[in-house]
Each structure stands twice: as C-alpha cells, then as structure tokens.
C-alpha cells in the first residue's frame, strides 16, 4: 500500500523539482557568482551595506502600509458582500477589474492623478488649488491598495461565506453585543481567510517595481526596483540574485508568521 502511495507521488516530485526547486537552486547559484563568474560571497556582504538595509526596511514599511489599508477596506467589503442578495454577482464585479492589465491601470492613474486630471478638477470646484498628487507616498499607496483589494477580498469573502450563521445567532442569543460577537466569534473564525489575504498582498507588495517608477517617480525604492536594475542595467546577475534570495527568505518568514495552525491543535 505504502509503495503504491510513493509511486503516486512521482509526478508531483518531478513537477516540484523542475519548477520549484531547480529555479530556486539556480537563483542561489547565481547569487554566489561575481561579475566574471567566479565563486564569491561578496554579494551577500554588499547586501548588508547601509543602502540595501535601508531599502529592505522601506520595502517592509510600504508593504506593511499597503497590506494594512487593503485589509481595512477589504474586510468590511467582504463582510457586506456576504450580506447582499446577489453576492456572487457583486463578487464578480469586484474581481473583473483585476482582469485588466496592471500596467494599463497604472497608466490610467497617471491621467487621473494629473494636475489637469479629474480629481484636481473636482477639488477645484470647491475652491482649492490643484494639488500635485502624482509622485507622492499617497499616490503610491493608493494605487497599490487599489490593485490588491480584489486579492484580499476573495479569501476573506470565502471564509466569511463558510461561517455557519447559527454560531452568530447563538452568540447574540446568549447576550453578546454585536461588537463582541464580531470580536469573539466572527473574526477568530475567519482569521484563516485574513491570513491568506495578507499573504497574497504582503508578499507581492514587497517586490513591487513598476508602480514605484510610474506612480511614485522613484521616490519609493523597493527591493524589486533594485533587482530590476541589477539585471537590466548593471548586468550584475549575482547581486540581483542575492537580493532575490533575501526576498525569498523574507517571503518564507512571512508565510511562517501568517501560516495556518494545524487543525485540532487547540480543542
């Protein structure tokens, strides 16, 4: 029986070896090469210089802000969605914008936020001077949050939708206020959805790069920007790979922190 199980694993093992292990191994291998292809640990030493540490810190900070605001908007939206009549339709309407190419949406925001764009036209109606919205922290976080919202809503919506309503009724029946019900019953039971939402937002947010140039005008530099520059401009694949290795490490750490506890660990 057991040997049959092992053979059944065979395709998965090849798949993972070819498309997960091999690329990561290649990244690791390249990260230990210098410009002329000799073995070195110099790249790792460089990573611990002030520039890259500061960049790591800013990447984390912005990824945190983006995830925080995305969650702040996505959770109530998902909650309200489960209360609507045609929830699948509403969910669909929220997801559809994510079918549009990311770059296209980003370019649209350049026009929307422009000095002569609709937002400034709107605030001028109220007698305010046009504001430079593009190339600020605000515009960067706004656009990123906008892009990640659907990805955060889906897992939260699913876990809220699966929540057995009788649990809520029971809590209210036993005298809990609606806030207590939310805090003690609804939120803990949907925490897994929140965690997966955080994973799909925080991890890509760490390595955002195109938006940092188009919307933030390079005022925000993330590790993703640095990787792009190392590969395309400096042609230093070693250093680019080294940053990628650290990014992988950070992602694994994020997965561990937000990882789902084994079922039955707590009775």
């Amino acid at each position: 029986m057991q040997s049959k199980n092992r053979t059944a694993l065979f395709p998965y093992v090849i798949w993972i070896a070819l498309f997960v292990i091999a690329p990561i191994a290649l990244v690791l291998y390249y990260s230990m090469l210098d410009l002329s292809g000799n073995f070195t640990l110099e790249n790792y030493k460089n990573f611990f210089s002030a520039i890259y540490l500061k960049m790591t810190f800013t990447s984390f900070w912005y990824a945190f802000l983006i995830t925080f605001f995305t969650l702040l908007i996505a959770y109530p939206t998902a909650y309200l969605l489960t209360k609507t009549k045609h929830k699948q339709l509403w969910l669909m309407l929220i997801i559809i914008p994510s079918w549009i190419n990311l770059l296209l949406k980003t370019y649209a925001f350049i026009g929307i936020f422009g000095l002569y764009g609709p937002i400034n036209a709107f605030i001028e109606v109220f007698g305010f001077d046009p504001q430079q919205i593009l190339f600020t922290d605000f515009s960067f976080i706004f656009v990123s949050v906008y892009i990640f919202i659907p990805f955060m809503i889906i897992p939260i919506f699913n876990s809220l939708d699966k929540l057995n309503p009788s649990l809520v009724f029971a809590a209210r029946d036993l005298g809990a206020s609606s806030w207590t019900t939310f805090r003690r019953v609804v939120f803990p039971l949907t925490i897994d959805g929140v965690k997966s939402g955080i994973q799909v937002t925080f991890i890509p947010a760490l390595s955002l790069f195109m938006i940092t140039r188009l919307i933030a005008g390079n005022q925000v530099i993330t590790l993703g920007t640095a990787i792009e520059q190392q590969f395309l401009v400096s042609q230093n694949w070693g250093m680019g790979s080294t940053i990628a290795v650290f990014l992988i490490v950070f992602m694994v750490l994020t997965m561990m922190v937000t990882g789902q506890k084994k079922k039955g660990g707590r009775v």
Partner: protein
Amino acid sequence: MKQLVQATSAIIIVCLLLFFASRSLESAGAKGSKDTLTVYNWGEYIDPELIDAFEQETGIHVVYETFDSNEAMYTKVQQGGSSYDIAVPSEYMIETMIEDDMLIELDHSLIPNMKNIDPYFLDLPFDPGNKYSTPYFWGTVGIVYNPSMVPEDLTFESWEDLWDERLKDKVFLVDGSREVIGMGLNSLGYSLNLKDDLALREATDKLIELTPNVKAIIGDEITPLMINNEATVALTWSGQAADMMWENEELDFAVPEEGSNLWFDNFVIPKTSKNIEGAHAFINFMLDAENGAQNADYVGYSTPNAASWELMDEEVISDERFYPDVELRERLEVYENLGLKWLGKYNEYFLEFKMNLN
C-alpha cells in the same frame, strides 16, 4: 497507474512546450532568410512609412522590433537565438560589441550613400574608419524647461541652476544612471567617464543636495507631462526635448556650459544576420538624402546626413539647441564603455541617490 502516466506525460508536455516557446521567442519569429530583414531599433525611432517604402522598393519583408536600452539590446543579440540583421546601438555599446566580436564588417561598396554623411560623424574613436557602423542619429543630454514657469534669471546655461532653491519639487530626471551621475560629475567640472571613487562620492553627495528639488525620476512618461505643463524642468535627451517642443511651443532646451553628453546611435550588422546583403541595402536606403530628411522630420532627433540638411527646413538645421556647432560639440563628451565593474558602481551610487529622495 493510468493517472500516474497521464500526470507524468502532462509534465513532459509542459516541459516540451516551454522549451519550444522559449526557442521561438528567442528567434523572434524571424527565420532569417533572403526575403526578410529583422531590424532591431529603439522605440519611436523611425518613420514607419519608410519601412513600407523600403519593402516596396526591394521586395524584402521587414520585421521590426524595438528595445529600450542598449544593455537589453546587447543581451538579446548576444543570446544569439534571434537573427537580427540590423541593430542601432549607441557609441559605447558599439565599442563593446566590437570587442566581443559580435559585429560584421561593413562592405562600404554596398553603401554608396555613406558619402552623404557629414565627415564630422565619420571615423570616430569608437569605430575608427567606420568598419562596423554607419551614423543614424546623434544628439546631446540637456535640460528642457518651461520659461513661463521658472524664475526669469534661470536659463540653465549652467547645471547649477538646477540647484536653485526656487525649483523645489519641480525637477524631473531621466531614470538612467549614466545621465544622472554624469550630470553630477559635469556640474563639478569632472569628466562623465570618470573611474574614480572619490569623485563619484563627491558627485553623489552633490546630487543628494539636489533631492529637495527632484519631483520624480521617470522614463518616457516625462514627455506627456512636459507637453501638458504638468512638469517644469526635466533632464532629458535632445531628441525627446524636440518632440516635446514640437507639441508645446512654450518649452525651451539648453545644454549647460560645463559640459554634457554627446551621443551617436549607429547602424550595425550583428553576426546573427542571415541577410547581410539586405542589411546593407537597408542602411543605404536610410542614408539616402530624401529618406534621411523625411526620417529626421518624423523622429525629431538630429541627423548626421549632410545631404538631408539641404532638403530640411532651414530653421531646424540652424537651431543651435539641436544642431550645436562644432565648437560647442567639443565641450561635450562621448560616453566611454565603463566596463561592468564601474557600470555597477555608477548604478550603486545612483541607487543611493534615489534612496535619498524621500
């Protein structure tokens, strides 16, 4: 067992598909033959009508592809999967490609229109005797600005004007390490090809002082921003400035006196070429007086084609901002190939500068 076989074969099929996809991507659809010519050029850098005209005249089908940096072009040609017949690198990249033995020597007898080129642009240090390349366009790096939106005493004859306090949050820079670090070096009176850590440090520190004035560091997106008066001052290439000024007549362009970059983009035939004869015909076609004039009108960059000058608008040719005289050109510097080590350093300093923006 059946499912097992299915799953395994599915993986093998995926692998094969990926393999063939990457093969066909590399060869870029161009099989490379006598009837097709694959041209690899910068974006928005040719009048598409001329490609049609060339196709009609010769019966050769042109496959046109674009790149956005010399480095990206180099990498793709070097990988060799694609059979590019023509590429348009800048001078320092031509030097690298000659060193790396990636180019075919030109047969000058097949390019009679070479006589149209102004002698100034021939036999330059990066390709003595034009063994491997023929001039296509040239230009400078400078500052495009809107005189009605900056204080009157700022004319950008000097790089120092960028550091003026009144330009807070008004300056846009192009996202290129050599342009920006080069500007820092130039503003201190150094050469923009300097390989000296101390000077680069000094230039970076000077650039960091500029950060309060810098609004953003972006790429081609700067063109619509300048045209719509959303940006006031920008560091950019002369041809891009010409594009902007074509649309927005208020704008002006200046090349600061401390010095700046003078660049040349030339035609080359990479060793990947499968239609060497066609490539020569294409170069010759583009160097024709009339075609050259039409192309320069369309693209907006400065042409080295002296015969085309005769046919172009006198006002354009005599515009010192885009056709600086030889004396001014002497003050400008051509990029040298820095080598990967120093290119890496320039980029590290540029990254440090960017980190200080916020």
